[in-house]
């Protein structure tokens, strides 16, 4: 009997040795990747259905495609717009005419040179959209796009200092119809392949006009389960994963990994539906602001990582960010209670917080909020919903009382963060309706003087804070787990990951 057990154990052991020994040379290890100058990056969400840069929706897709596409200008890490496909930009004194000189020798990933026709096509495609409405709101003021030789002249119907930011729109070849599945751009990395719900592969573009990246092949691995991402790092399948939480990075061995802290560049808030009772009353909204200590939320749900915010603007937008708004409401339970009493809710009320259940940070935040709100007699129930449901019912349908979510800026303009509170905006999902705000918004979007426009945007931020449009919480910390030996990444004021900034140390 014992012999049989022993024999069985030996069989198992030899099987394991066989598994371990054979074919390990085919396995990819971090050392091999380092030697070959390759990198594997873990992402938690597959990219959009279309990789056409003019139709990207998800922030996760923009994050990857940032490396593949460039516009006439592109943002740098400091948040400034620098020339890319254009080598030079001049703006007329009246602010109505922009003249771009195309850079010589810029090539597409298929080897073809970028022509004036391609540039005009790319711009016109965005201006006209699929149905006549521009794909980017700030292109609405474009009245004419002309090209001659190697210059492109764009004329606006009204001056708009934010216009240049929209010229980060990707330049793509005109006579190419597979942009959605096999995209071609001018960026430092070219698209190689994609396997649904599995991986996306990019390769260094040898003919890049600017400083090329150092990584040869970049493989994005899609692992929608966070445990899977952490395991992937530990097992050596992945070298870098961004957007992790402190609890997740704590599981990693510091001998193999270091954690770089940046910001997510988004505004996380308890968004209140201003058109639904009791949040129609400004006093109720203010009471919630007084009841919630942002730092307490950050400490409890995020181990202290995160930057508290007081309005719909995050610190990386230094030009527009107003730090003084952060402490506009300091925790004051008595004040909150008296505001509630004034509004007719002396004993508090019941409310529902809708959260997309696939975003754990938002779920965690909602739980802390529900706890904090008890202090003023507000009884919050958390309603977790699927992301698709959140999009259709909460966001598009505006059927909710309150929700925890984060909004980022798709382009580097204040309008991208503040435009949604204009009462007529199609994406004003929390139904903010303030006459003074609308007035400021219309002034700001038609103002050419940059300093004056900045003042208007700052006034709009203050308006949101004073009227407690929402309970603004924080710009979440972006913890990036990086394998030791790998340097970078550089943080941008946008939700992107610049692969060119990554390199293995010698």
């Amino acid at each position, binding site marked *: 009997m014992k012999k049989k057990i022993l024999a069985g154990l030996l069989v198992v052991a030899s099987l394991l040795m066989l598994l371990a020994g054979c074919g390990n040379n085919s396995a990819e290890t971090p050392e091999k990747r380092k030697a070959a100058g390759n990198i594997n990056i873990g992402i938690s969400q597959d990219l959009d259905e279309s990789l056409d840069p003019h139709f990207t929706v998800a922030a996760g897709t923009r994050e990857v495609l940032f490396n593949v596409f460039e516009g006439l200008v592109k943002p740098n890490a400091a948040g400034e717009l620098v020339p890319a496909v254009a080598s030079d930009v001049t703006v007329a004194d009246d602010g109505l005419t922009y003249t771009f000189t195309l850079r010589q020798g810029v090539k597409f990933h298929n080897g073809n040179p970028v022509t004036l026709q391609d540039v005009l096509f790319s711009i016109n495609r965005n201006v006209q959209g699929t149905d006549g409405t521009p794909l980017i709101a700030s292109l609405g003021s474009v009245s004419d796009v002309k090209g001659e030789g190697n210059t492109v002249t764009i004329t606006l119907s009204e001056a708009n200092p934010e216009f240049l930011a929209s010229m980060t729109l990707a330049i793509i070849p005109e006579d190419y119809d597979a942009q959605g599945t096999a995209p071609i751009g001018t960026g430092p990395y070219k698209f190689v392949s994609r396997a649904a719900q599995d991986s996306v592969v990019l390769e260094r573009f040898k003919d890049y006009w600017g400083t090329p990246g150092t990584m040869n092949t970049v493989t994005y691995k899609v692992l929608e389960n966070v445990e899977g991402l952490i395991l992937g790092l530990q097992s*050596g399948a992945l070298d870098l994963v961004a957007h992790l939480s402190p609890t997740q990075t704590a599981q990693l061995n510091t001998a193999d990994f270091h954690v770089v802290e940046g910001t997510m560049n988004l505004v996380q808030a308890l968004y209140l539906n201003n058109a639904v009772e009791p949040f129609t009353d400004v006093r109720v909204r203010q009471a919630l602001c007084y009841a919630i200590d942002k730092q307490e939320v950050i400490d409890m749900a995020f181990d202290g990582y995160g930057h508290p915010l007081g309005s719909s603007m995050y610190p990386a937008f230094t030009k527009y960010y107003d730090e003084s708004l952060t402490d506009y409401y300091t925790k004051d339970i008595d004040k909150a209670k008296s505001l509630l009493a004034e509004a007719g809710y002396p004993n508090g009320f019941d409310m529902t917080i809708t959260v997309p259940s696939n975003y754990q940070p938002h779920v965690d935040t909602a739980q802390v909020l529900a706890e904090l709100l008890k202090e003023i007699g507000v009884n919050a129930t958390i309603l977790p919903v699927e992301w698709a449901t959140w999009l259709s019912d909460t966001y*598009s349908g505006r059927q909710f009382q309150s929700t925890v979510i984060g909004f980022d800026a798709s382009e580097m303009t204040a309008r991208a963060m503040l435009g949604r509170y204009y009462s007529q905006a199609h994406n004003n999902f929390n139904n903010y309706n303030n006459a003074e705000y609308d007035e400021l918004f219309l002034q700001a979007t038609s103002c050419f003087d940059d300093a004056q426009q900045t003042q208007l945007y700052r006034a709009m931020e203050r308006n949101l804070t004073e009227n407690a449009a929402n309970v603004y919480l924080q710009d979440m910390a972006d913890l990036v787990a990086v394998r030791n030996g790998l340097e970078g990444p550089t943080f941008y004021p946008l939700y992107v990951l610049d692969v060119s900034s990554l390199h293995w140390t010698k």
Partner: protein
Amino acid sequence: MKAVAKRLLTLLLTMILVSFLTFAAFDIVSGDPAETLLGTQATPERVAALREELGLNRPFLVRYFSWLGGFFTGDLGTSYNYRQPVWGLVAPKLKVTLLMCLLCFVLVSATSIPLAIWSYRWVGGAMDWLRTGFNQLCMAVPPFFTGILVSWLFGIVLHIFTPGGFPDLHAHPWGAFKHLFFAAVCIGIPRAAMTVRMMRSTVVEEMQKAYVRTAISRGNDRSGVLRTHVLKNSLVSAITFLGQTMAEMVGGSIVVEQVFGIPGLGRFLVASISNRDYPVVQTIVVILALWVVLAGTVADVLNQIIDPRLRTGGKA
């Protein structure tokens, strides 16, 4: 012949019913494919245009029958999320999951039947108690938990495979095999434990039957009887159970694929459901239905070979 035709008809009806129910379920749940695709960039105009493009504005039955018509003519439709033909997306994932489930099935069958016979030796006593406890533990442990343990031990400590780094099936078949092997073990453990328990109790039951007593009184030894008569009689229920196992493995594979980062059918199904990618979900659901019905059919056929009394027309 009649039996085969009946089987095929059942198969067809099951698949149609399942596809109809899936279609109907998506019509009831909230979440619109066009709104999901456009995300926070949705404007009413863009949503309307996309709905029109995807053909979502047609009435429910029209959509269903157009899908069904396509299905019977070999056109599985185009994925909303990838704008590619569904079959091209699903086929490589089906291959991976199929391989994993076959591997799991082989492991379960190859371990549980010998273990069940072996464990029969200890009826009563401390060893039996220990064995029952271990068996219970194996049955109770959920695959995702074993998955995390196995990934940690064999992936991170022993570096036998690379969790999260599933290699290409054709380029690195051995690496992929190792990956699938450990995943198959995790799915298989509870199923194997259940098979052992079920089969063991059948063996115990059979051994008390009159024919065993007769055989032994004629001078046959116990293990000979066990191997020649009892085993064959116990196999019928075991095979039926293994047939169900084959069907249920797909359920286990969904979770394990996520833990191990295997690009299989289960993960793709879950992702497609949350993306509201109906054409993909429909196809996968029909494949799964086919799988379940086929597993049952194969088990029935095998049982009829082993036990002629079960053949149609035969007398029990």
